[in-house]
């Protein structure tokens, strides 16, 4: 009898087990950045442990506020702090930030470009707790809010760099969070995160994968697997969903055969839609293989099982790409 996967605690790690990891890269980076940015304050809505912000609290206890289970108030308080000159980083889960506090993000933060950073845990399918906890549609919701920057970092390197970039940027940001033991995919000595900039991290021409968030790691693994079958696969990593680097996508798309998008999100309203909009706007008609979650809620279960069933693993991506090539 095969042992079935089990739903694990909410705080399970993001690692896929094949790369070195950093523990709590966001909280560590925020604690470091706050040593020079003395206006940074940290807030959470009863999810300090599960959003990795405790290293910041421990380093700067007088600048940390837990507002309880109240996400509208989390965002409102952050907006008030920003209006008095502070730089609030407010953490909760993506589902609660987007679905519960949408009006507050739109009006209290984005409308007047108030300098609030919303850090959103459990993006897409990174928890087995089901539809209540899986932020599968947050790109779509957040990208439609004017003035809001939307970021989906792919690894520990990018989380650390993006945390610094968010502190330096004066304006509202929604950033997805990978927590726990987070893999190192990008070389910190060579990679440089900039808001709004997509980066070609692997060259290849038969297939081009446009990816964001944790799917970039899987895109690289997929590229390795397909290379062993003689296929050349390029990867364009798009960490910023908004503002979207449409020029980089168009340039990348023009130089590859089969175009693929890979996102830890439903395949409408997010990365795939942005790519399609960018290409059509430029008069480029391409077939597009969209890898991501379907238009349905995802049930409970173990993350490994669910990611396999929903096609977010590298082997499933490779199979989907080969199937699309016929």
């Amino acid at each position, binding site marked *: 009898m095969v042992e079935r996967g089990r739903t694990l605690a909410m705080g399970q790690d993001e690692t896929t087990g094949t790369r070195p990891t950093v523990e709590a890269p966001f909280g560590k980076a925020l604690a470091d950045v706050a040593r020079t940015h003395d206006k940074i*304050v940290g807030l959470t809505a009863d999810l300090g442990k599960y959003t990795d912000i405790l290293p910041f609290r421990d380093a700067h206890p*007088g*600048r940390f*506020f837990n*507002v*309880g289970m*109240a996400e*509208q*108030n989390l*965002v*409102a*308080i*952050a*907006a*008030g*702090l*920003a*209006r*008095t*000159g*502070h730089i*609030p980083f407010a953490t909760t889960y993506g589902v609660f930030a987007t679905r519960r506090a949408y*009006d*507050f993000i739109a*009006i*209290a933060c984005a*409308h*007047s470009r108030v300098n609030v950073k919303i850090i959103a845990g459990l993006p897409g399918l990174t928890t087995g707790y089901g539809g209540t906890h899986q932020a599968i549609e947050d790109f779509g919701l957040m990208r439609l809010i004017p003035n809001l920057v939307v970021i989906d970092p792919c690894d520990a390197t990018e989380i650390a760099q993006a945390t610094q970039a968010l502190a330096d940027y004066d304006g509202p940001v929604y950033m997805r969070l990978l927590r726990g033991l987070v893999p190192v995919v990008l070389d910190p000595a060579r990679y440089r995160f900039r808001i709004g900039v997509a980066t070609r991290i692997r060259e290849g021409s038969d297939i081009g994968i446009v990816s964001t968030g944790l799917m970039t790691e899987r895109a690289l693994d997929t590229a390795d697997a397909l290379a062993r079958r003689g296929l050349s696969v390029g990867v364009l990593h798009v960490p910023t969903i908004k503002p979207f680097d449409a020029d980089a996508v168009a340039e990348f798309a023009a130089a590859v055969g089969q175009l693929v998008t890979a996102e830890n999100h439903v395949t409408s309203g997010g990365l795939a839609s942005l790519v399609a909009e960018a290409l059509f706007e430029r008069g480029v008609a391409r077939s597009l293989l969209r890898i991501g979650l379907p238009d349905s809620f995802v049930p409970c279960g173990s993350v490994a099982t669910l990611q396999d069933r929903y096609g977010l693993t590298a082997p499933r991506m490779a199979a989907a790409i080969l199937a699309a090539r016929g």
Partner: protein
Amino acid sequence: MAVKNLPADTSPVSFLQGVALNLRRHMVAMARRQGAGYIAQGLGIADTLAALYFHELRYDPARPDWVGRDRFLLSTGHYSIALWAALAEAGVIPVAELDSYGADDSRLDMSTLDTTPGVEMIGGSLGHGLGQAVGMALGLRLQQSEGRVFCELSDGEMQEGATWEAAMAGASFGLDTLVALIDCNGIQADGAIVLRMEPVADKWRAFGWETTEIDGNDMAQIVNALHGARSRSGKPKAIVLRTTPGKGIPTLEHRERAHFVRVDLGEWDALARELETFHG
């Protein structure tokens, strides 16, 4: 530093009543030009705004963004007609600009946007004010600023759950420089208050706020309550203001559909005459 209206120990009640009358005159003129508006709410809150802008708040009308100022947040953005009147009378915006209330390209919108000088938040989506006020009070405390934060909200607005999220936080963080001014005028968009909100003062006390309940159209009581709210007791302050919508114009005071008032052009003269006859 031209800080206006530093708190004084004496209460110039009759002076402030005169200011409130001027605010009401501005509002009638603005609503007449617009033809309609939230004038009933504006007339109801006029006394509180007069006391704030001419007695209690520390601010510089020439520099509305002065960092050391006290903040006044109008959470009910549709009361903007009263705020524009107060900001004009206080010298933050020109009185002549009141003519443009509600007109295309005016800074004086029917619902407040924070692009207008003297406006601290966008107030149209009810339930947004108190949480931002908590954040501002926290922020000012972190900076060891003297600035205090006053947040107007309404009885109908208390139906928004975010109000109570903020009430819990304000008390938990011990924000004694935060003052909630709760305008209980008994009306909301669908008419009379649709849910049972009473006992309002007991609710705020239960949430840990130092609470007083007054006639919100009695200047002496307003000044007294604001004075009491200066105490550094470790608790936020709530002042429950029992106000009469349309206060000062009997025809509007007795109007049943007061939330959004439409008045025929010829009727405005009669209303303006009532204001001059019945004030005080």
